[in-house]
Each structure stands twice: as structure tokens, then as C-alpha cells.
């Protein structure tokens, strides 16, 4: 965002009021608490209605990076990024495989974390622990990436140095942890709902303004096609075979991994009823289309009218588009401020969900295991709050120390490879009682080893951590599934 015009006092006042309103919501959420229990704190008393459930699912699934990163990606690869719609849809399709049944079981068993279900279904501690570890590692990396993005965003809009990055990370993270520990999931879901509305409204107006400023899409397509002929690129052309394979891999890998995000699973538990959950997911099924189309159109206009960006600068292309809109009119300036708030909101809503889920997994899956008889729910809720503060403090330090190092954030690709390994335990285990714990556990171990080793092998058919264009996690899933299924079959035969 370092391409924006300097913000005036009015713009800063708007952003400040918006951030303060999140704290007020946290306070109201605290007042709305019905009891001092883990279920009330981490799952909002399992009473999320349709609109809040949908908006919190939306704000959690679509982070600030969705718009920033995807506009930049369109700038780099051209029209083929439109295929990202398929993988965002595939996440909701994969929910069909387990979410309704998981909700029904959670209702009777009072689950808080994903590992609660695994323990209930398989009754095997090692499996519950490995699933908690995978979830925590994936979420910590994700949370760190969001904190660093928040710092860069604040640095960009202040047009200042490192001090603005550090101040931005500390200030925004502190706001998140305050409202998160005041109101738990209720506060997170309510703020997500506001953030979801701001996102949807801001980007809808942005789309209208983009067409007003740049004109018809056909003209942009023509410019890009001419650029293709000069540069020998394929940004307006049909993607080649390798790109098509990679898209197929993304559709399968993201669907099976991101639907199993621990915070997404907790939102399944938190729904008011099965009907509410299904309706929320049904609306979510239609969200890839508007969000991805806006990101792709912004990227296509930038490619045609703001050419010449390369490498890391392409990630900042959304900031350039916003600057064009800012300079276009007073309305454009206002909308760009709203969108800035929406992007901050999107980063914060993703971060707050991840933090709350990590805190719940620490409290429920790790801390309670140290006691023969678990502490009271009141004590556990307090431990969870301390965990949120402590864990966030640690990540703030990491985000500040690693501010010039992006390689850790790039590991974000690996989280897909990790998360997908737990798919058999949830998606097959929930339907078939013959699936046994030990084969599932060893399948996960084997899948993890393969998924983590492949990206570091130097072989002709491995490029950017993918085998013939397919994710390492998908390759690891094949032996994972084989061990789980064949192992369970042998176990059954023995009995």
C-alpha cells in the first residue's frame, strides 16, 4: 500500500473510529455472555444465527490477502487466475463431505476443538495430538503472516519507516486480543460480521469505479493480447497443459485442506442448528464468484493500464489501483479509505479467528491433559485468555524480528500440504466405522513426511514444491489413504 496518497486527518479519524468500534463490540459481546464456560467463550454458546455465521465464515475464509494477493497474481499470470473461483468453491463442496454429520455429533458430545471429535471417534491419544499439532503449526504460520501483513499495511498507509510497521503490528494485534479475550467467539463473530459487510460493500463500489475509470473490459483484453504478442507471454490466452494440471491440483488440495481449518471446524460446532449451518454454507457457495471476479478484474485493468511491474512489486499492484481510484474523484478517495479499512478488517478477522482457535486447542487439547481431573471451566477459560495474550506476544516479537524476511511467510504454501493429511480422519472416519485409529495415524505420519520432503528434492519433475504441477500434499495423501484403508481392512480381518 506504499503507493497511496498520504491520508488526511479525516481518513485517519475514520480508521481510528472503526478500530475503536471493534473494542466496543468486544465489550458488548462480554456483556452478552450467558455462562463462564469454554463452550460459551470459544463457540459463542453454540448459538450463531444464519447472518452472523455466514459473515464470519466469509470473513475467515477470505483474508486481506485474497484481494491483495489475488490481484497481484492476476497481474502476473493474466486471465487464468479466474480459475481460482473453482478452488474457492471446492472448499464449500468439501464441507458437504463431513460438516452436517460433524455438527450433529458435536451437538450431543459438546466438542470444542477438532481434536475433541478425533478423540471421540478414534479414542487414540497419539492421533488427537498429531492433529492438534498440525492445526497449531498451520494456524501459527497463518497468524504470523497476517500480523506481518498488518504491519506492512500500516507502514504503507503512513508512508513511514520501520517504526510504523512495529507500531502497526503492536496496535492492531493488541486490539484483536482485547476484544477476543473480552467476548471470545461471540466478539470475533460479531466483528467478523461487520468486517464482512465492509468488505462486500467496499469491493462492490470499487468494481463500479474501476469500470467508470478504465472503461470496457474488451479494451483491456485487447491491450493485454497485444502485450502477449510483443513479450511472448500468454496472459490473455488459454493456459498451457502444466498450468491446467496445477489448477486441478489447487482445486483438490485447497478444497480438502482449507475446509479442515480448525477455526472453520469450530464455526461448524458454533452454528445454532443444522439448518442454519447448511443455509450458511449454501450462501458461502456463491461467494467465490463476486470476490474472485472483482480481484481478477482489478488485476486485468492494472495489467493493461499500469504495466511494467515485476517481481515483488506485483504484490503491491492493488495499492496502485487504489491510488488511481483515490486520484479519480472525491468519491474515489472516500471509497479507497473504506477499502483500506476493509483490508485491515479482513486481515484482523482472519487473525482473530486463528488466535482464538489456537488458544482453545492449547487449553482443551494440551493444558487439560496435565491433570487427572480437569480444572473447572472457569479456570480453563481464564487459562485460554492468558494463552491468547502470551501466544500473541510471542508472535508479535517474531513478526517484528522477521519483518524483512518473507521466506517464513512463503511457507504458507506448506500448510495446505500439512492440513490435507488429516482429511481421511475427518471425511472418511465420520462415515465409516471400520476405519481404525492406528492405520489413520501412521497414514498421516507417512503423508506428512512425503509432503514435507518433496519440496526440497531437486528433481526434473519437481518444480516450486509440486510434482508435475501437483501439490506435494496431494502426493503424500495417496500413501496416507492407502495405509489408512488397507491397514483398517487388515485390522478388520484379524478381528
Amino acid at each position, binding site marked *: 500500500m506504499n503507493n497511496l496518497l498520504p491520508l488526511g486527518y479525516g481518513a485517519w479519524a475514520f480508521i481510528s473510529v472503526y478500530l475503536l468500534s471493534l473494542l466496543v463490540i468486544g465489550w458488548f459481546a462480554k456483556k452478552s455472555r450467558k455462562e463462564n464456560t469454554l463452550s460459551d467463550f470459544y463457540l459463542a454458546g453454540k448459538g450463531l444465527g444464519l447472518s452472523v455465521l455466514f459473515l464470519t465464515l466469509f470473513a475467515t475464509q477470505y483474508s486481506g490477502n485474497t484481494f491483495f494477493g489475488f490481484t497481484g497474481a492476476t497481474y502476473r499470470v493474466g*486471465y487464468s487466475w*479466474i*480459475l481460482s*473461483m*473453482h478452488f474457492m*468453491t471446492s472448499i*464449500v*463442496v468439501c464441507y*458437504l463431505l463431513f460438516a*452436517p454429520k460433524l455438527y*450433529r455429533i458435536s*451437538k450431543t458430545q459438546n466438542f470444542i476443538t477438532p481434536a475433541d471429535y478425533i478423540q471421540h471417534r478414534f479414542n487414540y491419544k497419539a492421533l488427537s495430538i498429531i492433529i492438534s499439532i498440525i492445526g497449531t503449526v498451520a494456524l501459527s504460520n497463518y497468524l504470523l503472516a497476517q500480523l506481518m501483513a498488518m504491519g506492512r499495511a500500516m507502514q504503507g498507509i503512513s508512508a513511514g519507516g520501520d517504526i510504523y510497521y512495529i507500531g502497526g503490528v503492536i496496535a492492531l494485534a493488541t486490539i484483536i486480543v482485547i476484544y477476543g479475550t473480552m467476548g471470545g467467539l461471540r466478539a470475533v463473530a460479531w466483528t467478523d460480521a461487520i468486517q464482512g459487510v465492509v468488505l462486500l460493500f467496499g469491493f462492490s463500489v470499487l468494481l463500479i469505479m474501476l469500470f467508470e475509470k478504465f472503461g*470496457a*473490459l*474488451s*479494451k483491456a*483484453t485487447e491491450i493485454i*493480447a497485444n502485450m502477449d504478442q510483443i513479450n511472448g507471454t500468454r496472459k*490473455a*490466452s*488459454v*493456459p*498451457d*497443459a502444466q498450468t*491446467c494440471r496445477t*489448477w*486441478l491440483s489447487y*482445486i483438490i488440495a485447497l478444497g480438502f485442506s482449507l475446509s479442515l481449518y480448525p477455526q472453520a471446524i469450530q464455526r461448524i460446532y458454533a452454528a445454532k*442448528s*443444522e*439448518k442454519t449451518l*447448511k*443455509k450458511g*454454507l*449454501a*450462501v458461502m*457457495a*456463491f461467494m*467465490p*464468484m463476486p470476490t474472485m*471476479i472483482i480481484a481478477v478484474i482489478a488485476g486485468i485493468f492494472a495489467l493493461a493500464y499500469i504495466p511494467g511491474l515485476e517481481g515483488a512489486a506485483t504484490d503491491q499492484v492493488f495499492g496502485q489501483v487504489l491510488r488511481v481510484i483515490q486520484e479519480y474523484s472525491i468519491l474515489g478517495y472516500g471509497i479507497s479509505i473504506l477499502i483500506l479499512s476493509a483490508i485491515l478488517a479482513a486481515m484482523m478477522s482472519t487473525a482473530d479467528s486463528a488466535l482464538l482457535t489456537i488458544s482453545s486447542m492449547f487449553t482443551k487439547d494440551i493444558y487439560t491433559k496435565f491433570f487427572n481431573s480437569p480444572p473447572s471451566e472457569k479456570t480453563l477459560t481464564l487459562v485460554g485468555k492468558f494463552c491468547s495474550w502470551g501466544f500473541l506476544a510471542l508472535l508479535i516479537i517474531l513478526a517484528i524480528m522477521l519483518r524483512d524476511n518473507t521466506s517464513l511467510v512463503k511457507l504458507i504454501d506448506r500448510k495446505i500440504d500439512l492440513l490435507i493429511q488429516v482429511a481421511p480422519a475427518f471425511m472418511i472416519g465420520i462415515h465409516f466405522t471400520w476405519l481404525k485409529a492406528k492405520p489413520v495415524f501412521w497414514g498421516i505420519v507417512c503423508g506428512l513426511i512425503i509432503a514435507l520432503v518433496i519440496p526440497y528434492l531437486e528433481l526434473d519433475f519437481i518444480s516450486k514444491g509440486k510434482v508435475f504441477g501437483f501439490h506435494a500434499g496431494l502426493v503424500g495423501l495417496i500413501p496416507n489413504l492407502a495405509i489408512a484403508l488397507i491397514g483398517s481392512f487388515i485390522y478388520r480381518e484379524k478381528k
Partner: protein
Amino acid sequence: MNKNIFYFFLYIILVAVGIPWYWPKDSQSLLLGVPTWVIIAIFCSLLASILTAYILIKPNTDEEK
């Protein structure tokens, strides 16, 4: 045929048509100002969304009472 298998095949068809692996590599055809394969990809994604919403919303016998 089992309904779930039927839905599964519908998704396979939508993905197979949505990814333009079969499209002529030198095609220049445009529709609504964008390459035609882009419109087909969007249309397949829309159909996948409608199918998913239908599966979720339709009355289900094993749903909670």
C-alpha cells in the same frame, strides 16, 4: 444410481469443462469482452455453486429432527 455418486460425477464434469485443457491453444475468440474460455469457467463455477446450494438446502432424511 446412488444420488451421491451422481452429484460426484456432476462435479467431475464441471471441473473437467471449467478448466480449459481442451481449448485450442491459439484461440482468440472473445465473449463479453473477455476470452470465451473465461466465461465458460465462470459459468461452470456458477453451476457448481448452484449444485452445492441445492444439495445443502434440499430436504434430507437424515437431518436432525
